C-alpha cells in the first residue's frame, strides 16, 4: 500500500506494519459498502462519511478483536450500527450537519437520481427496526442468522421483520411508481 509508506517508516515493529497493511486492505475493500449501508440506514452523505470513518477508527484500535471475529463483516456491521444508533440518540440535544435537503422534490433532481430518491423515501417510511433488518440482509448481504446476531434478536424476529418490510415496500407508492417505470 503505497499511501502507507510514511506511516510504515515510524514503525519499529514488523507486526504493526503487517497490521496496518491488513487493516488498509480491509478498509479499502469495505469503505464503499459501509458508506452505502450508512446512507441506507438513514445518514446524509457527509454524515455517512463521518460515521464510517469513526467506525473504521474504532475498528483499527480494536483490530485484534476484529480479526478474531467469526464473521469480520458482520462484526464491523455491528460496530457501524452501534455508531449509527448512538448518533441518533444524541441528536435531540446535539446539532448535526445538514448539508442536504431532507426531502427534495422529484421534479428538481435529475431523472437518474429520481429512482434513488424514491427508494430513499420508501425506506424512510419503514420503522427503524425494519429498516435496519432490510439494510443488513438485502444490502450488506448478511444471512438471516448473521443479521439476527448483529441486531441482537432472534432469527424468527428477523424473518418477521423482513416479511413486514417487504410487504410495506411492495405497497409503497414511490416503489410502485419505480416498478411501473416512471423513474427508470
Amino acid at each position: 500500500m503505497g499511501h502507507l509508506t510514511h506511516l510504515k517508516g515510524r514503525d519499529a515493529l514488523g507486526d504493526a506494519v503487517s497490521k496496518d497493511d491488513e487493516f488498509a486492505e480491509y478498509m479499502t475493500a469495505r469503505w464503499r459498502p459501509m458508506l452505502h449501508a450508512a446512507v441506507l440506514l438513514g445518514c446524509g452523505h457527509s454524515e455517512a462519511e463521518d460515521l464510517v470513518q469513526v467506525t473504521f477508527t474504532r475498528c483499527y484500535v480494536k483490530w485484534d478483536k476484529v480479526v478474531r471475529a467469526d464473521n469480520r463483516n458482520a462484526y464491523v456491521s455491528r460496530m457501524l450500527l452501534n455508531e449509527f444508533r448512538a448518533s441518533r440518540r444524541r441528536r435531540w440535544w446535539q446539532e448535526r450537519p445538514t448539508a442536504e435537503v431532507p426531502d427534495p422534490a422529484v421534479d428538481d433532481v435529475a431523472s437518474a437520481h429520481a429512482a434513488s430518491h424514491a427508494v430513499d423515501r420508501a425506506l424512510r417510511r419503514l420503522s427503524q427496526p425494519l429498516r435496519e433488518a432490510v439494510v443488513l440482509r438485502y444490502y450488506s448481504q448478511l444471512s438471516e442468522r448473521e443479521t439476527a446476531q448483529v441486531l441482537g434478536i432472534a432469527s424468527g424476529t428477523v424473518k418477521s421483520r423482513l416479511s413486514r418490510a417487504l410487504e410495506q415496500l411492495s405497497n409503497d407508492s414511490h416503489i410502485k411508481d419505480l416498478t411501473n417505470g416512471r423513474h427508470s
Partner: protein
Amino acid sequence: MNDEEATRLLNRRADDVPDVPAPVTEVIATGRAVQRQNRRVTALGVALAATVVGGLVVQQATIGRTGPTPEVPSVAAPEPRVVGSGNALERWSSSTASDWVRTSDYVVVAHAVSEQALADQPESGGSIERSVELDIKKVVWTRSKPAQPLPSAVTVTAFGWTEDNVPLAWSGTPRIEPGHDYVIALVWSPAQCSPNDPPERTQWTPLGSHAVLPFDNARVGYGESEGRLVLGDADQASAGTLEERLLDQSLTELRDALRDAPPPNGQEPRTLPPPSTC
C-alpha cells in the same frame, strides 16, 4: 416483492451515493494517536498522590481565586503521569448511582473552558494544582432540596503537574481538560479545617474521584480520562463504577440509573458535618 427485488432496490439507492476515496491514512493515523494516548504511564506512587488527592475541588465562578494564576505549562507537555488507585482518601464514596443520589446536590453536564496553574512553584508534595473553568451545559439531576442554587459556571481545582511539568492524573478518572465535556456529580461542601492542611472554604466540589465521567459527544466514557483520549472501551473505567455501568450510554440511561438507584443501605440520606469556621 422477493429477496432479489429488494436487493436490486437498495442497490439503486446505493449506486447514487457519491464515490469518496477511503481515508485510510487518516484513519490509521487517528487510530495510532488513540492507541498512543491509551498507553498508561507507570504510577508515581501513593505518597505523591496523597498530596494532590485533595484536588477536584470546585469553587463557584463568582468567587475570586486566591494567589497567583500563572499560565498553564506548554501544550507540548509529556504524557500524563497516572497516580493512585481507588478512593480511600476521599470524603464521600462516589462509585455508584446510589452514592451519587445519596450525597450530591446536582448532577450536571459541564464543558471545560480553560485552565490555569494555581501556583508558580510546586507545593511541598512536589505538584502544582490547576484551576479549570467549567460551563454548566445541562442539569441532569437535582436533589429535592439542594443546599444552594447552582451557578451557570464553576471553577474546578484539579490535578495539575509535577514539578517538571508532567501532567498528573488520578487513576481511572478524568483530569478535566479544556475542550472536553463531563458528567459531574456536585455537592455543596462544608468548610474543612484539618490541623495540618490549609482551611478549605465552603464550596462546590465533585463528590469524589468517580463523580466525574468523560462525556464528549454526549456519550459516557468518551472524551478525556487520565489525560488521554478514551472511546468507551471496556477496560478504561474502574470496576464497579457508574462509568463502567454506563459506558457508551447517553443521558437517557444516566437519568434512568439515577432515578432507579436503590436507597443507601441503612444510612441516612445525607450526613454532612455541620458548618465550621476556620
